[in-house]
């Protein structure tokens, strides 16, 4: 069954059960998203995909709102642009978004000026957590999108090593009592890295290369292959720079992995270097 709704005056037909975001994508509209992931349950926490829906008092998160018949959605109103701009300014003024893909273009598109909140504004700046050789956690880059918590939990790994702890601006992603990762329930599947939209979670290899100034995406190639550790058949994307593997992802739309791997596929490649 399909339903029809109007987006910026244009009728769009979507499958029943589709979200407003699905409809926006079908309409060819570029919608900023951060906490949304195609392989995760929407948490609608970042509020950057907000749209105006006729009859709704407040704006509506496109990522989680089911499309309804005859819904009238506007994406380019003053209200929508204002909210998106402010949300981007809130994030860019409090979080280090320097390596977050796509965000720079959105800041330009919505005319965001994070500096207008003053030079002595509060930020989530804090030291990087380097607790092992596999990946690092730089919560100065964390926008609290919940994606890592979801990937660690019921959306993928069912390990539950991390949760949001604390409250408000002080809230952070944390293990129980902030114990170090090797002492926590973490199984190093790295699925949190795969979904992190800001680079707060990063392969140690990438982190070290960035520190040394040798990280260069223009010199990287991506090789697709199938993981050879077991018979599941997970698709791997090997990011290679200077003939060395520097990180491993899996395509989000791959029907075996949904973008998720285990410790072997994600990190088990030192022996071929």
């Amino acid at each position, binding site marked *: 069954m399909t339903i029809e709704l109007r987006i910026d005056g244009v009728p769009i037909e979507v499958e029943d059960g589709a979200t407003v975001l699905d409809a926006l994508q079908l309409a060819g509209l570029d919608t900023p998203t951060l906490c949304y992931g195609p392989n995760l349950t929407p948490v609608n926490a970042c509020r950057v995909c907000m749209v105006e829906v006729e009859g709704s008092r407040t704006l509506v998160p496109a990522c989680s709102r089911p499309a309804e018949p005859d819904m009238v959605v506007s994406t380019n109103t003053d209200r929508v642009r204002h909210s998106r701009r402010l949300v981007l300014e809130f994030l860019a003024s409090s979080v280090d978004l320097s390596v977050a893909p796509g965000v720079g273009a959105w800041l330009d598109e919505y005319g965001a000026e994070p500096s*207008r909140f003053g030079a002595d504004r509060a930020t989530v700046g804090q030291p990087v957590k380097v607790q092992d050789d596999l990946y690092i956690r730089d919560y100065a880059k964390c*926008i609290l999108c919940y994606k890592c918590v979801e990937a660690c939990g019921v959306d993928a790994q069912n390990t539950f090593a991390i949760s949001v702890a604390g409250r*408000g601006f002080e809230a952070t992603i944390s293990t129980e009592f902030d114990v170090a990762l090797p002492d926590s*329930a973490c199984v190093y599947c790295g699925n949190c890295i795969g979904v992190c939209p800001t680079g707060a979670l990063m392969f140690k290899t990438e982190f070290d290369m960035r520190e040394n100034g040798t990280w260069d995406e223009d010199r990287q190639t991506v090789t697709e292959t199938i993981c050879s550790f077991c018979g599941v058949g997970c698709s791997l994307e090997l990011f290679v720079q200077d003939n060395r593997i520097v990180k491993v992802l899996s395509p989000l739309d791959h029907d075996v992995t949904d973008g998720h791997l285990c410790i072997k596929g994600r990190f088990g490649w030192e022996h071929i270097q």
Partner: protein
Amino acid sequence: MDIQLLADRPTAEERAAVDEVLGPPVSSWDGARQRRPVDEHVAFGGSAARAGRHLLLPALHALQDAIGAVSRGGLNYICERLTIPPAEAYGVAAFYHLLTVDAPGTPVAYVCDDIACRGAGVADLLGELDAGREDGTRIETSPCLGQCHAGSAAYVHRPGVPAHRVGVAPASAPGVLGALRGNAPAQAGAIPVPQPVTDRRVLRRVGAVDPASLDSYREHGGYAALAWAVERGPEEIVAEVEASRLMGRGGAAFPAGVKWRAVAGQPGPRYVICNADESEPGTFKDRVLLEYDPFAVIEAMTIAGLAVGAATGYLYIRGEYPLAEERLRAALDQARHAGLLGPVSMSGMFDFDIEIRRGGGAYICGEETALFNSIEGYRGEPRQKPPFPTEAGLFSRPTLVNNVETLVNVLDIVSEGGAAYAATGTESSTGTKLFCLSRDIATPGVYEFPFGITLGDVLEAAGGVTGELAAVLVGGAAGSFIGPDRLDTPLTFEGARAAGISLGSGVVMPFAVGTDFADITRRIAAFFEEETCGQCVPCRVGVVRQGEALGRLTTGRSRTDEVALIDDIARAMRDASICGLGHTASGAIQSAIALDLIGVS
């Protein structure tokens, strides 16, 4: 579920505290120290243990009560018992301000420094307490403790079995220090209900009925409404509530009859929740009802359970209201013994019982969907609506949530009939309303008036403003300031809407000329910074940016820039936040600026 626990083991004391809530463990699978032969062959726990997740917050409270902290070993034991990953349980514990996860347990006094108590020498009190406190005790400031009529207040928690939990209001240094040592507070002062009983309806039993006695409640007409309700049945009860045109008294003013009808029409199981998490600064009306007329709240919840077909009700009470909680627990016991709860045996039988859930110091948990998450054992973060609670609320089941005052109104609606009830008040605001008067007023307290009375007449009835009136805060921190030229504003839902304000929870807080409004508005901004859950970006960062801009504004920096910035922030919070906290976090500050109360020009 395969979960990895911490290596830390509970002490005997911690184990006993948790077992008091969860019962003894069934087997070594869920925490028993002895492994029985059968445990080698049969697994216990599993989904049955996980179904107890709603006991997480009570179990955390039990640890906090016993040892003054949520220790590693204690948390680990709860996780073992309920099959909860430690990281999740830690995330829940760290959400609540009354739970301590980062320090050893000590007696602690939370001293109100919020807007009502702020004028009354709170800095002196804090200084005296800091100088006089014994080593190994803590003094912390607190948002409003719902004792605003007293002008100063503290909530003291001294760990032990049982814990010593008391409110001290008014709060003197000797009184608070004594409570920290475990002394019972001096006899409570007069009940803050100044009107003669003949002028009160919802409040008419307050002070007259013995809150510890079911017999006394019955002598004052108690349980007549339930008898009527049992006789007439669910359909007629809902019809009367609809006919009354009762609007919710918790702040959002939603028509109660619409909720009751919607929940009753959904498939079961259904739940009823009494929202007694009264935390809006300046509000103490629900506390007065809970402390002085607890059976009325229980009877009204029972009627609601019967009407919508719910077998279980939850009463979610603010953690800082120990006296109300104690009286409610005693009242629940008496009602159960008398066959008025559990299986309710009146002329017709039905099942309904009430569980109390204690909040952990989080304003946001008064938001109904955050309240569901809190009861279910998750962080008290609001959910995006739709779906609405009437369809998918507590445990994703249809749920009726009403505020304490709303529910108590139902007793008269049932007894008199909805149409007769609606004869009081105005067309769109029926019945009476409780108003909480505090701060610069001659006789602070909870007042009850038929809807239609003006702001000026409310102030007059409470003896008038002490000093020359500068502004009135209507609706609390989530409300707005209104100037002395607007005293003719009728305090009805429609009158408030027309005036661009909200009645909210019924706070009417006058401020006299000479008030340091820069300080007051900064405290309001700080309140939202402390209380935002942090889930959505507009609210989590917006309240911080608002506080910073207000700080610059009130210390004499560029007025135009900062005011425009605050307006920009407010608009995004109002449009894009998940819940009402973000939507309303700027109203008081923007109205104070518009009225030029901050005095930077």
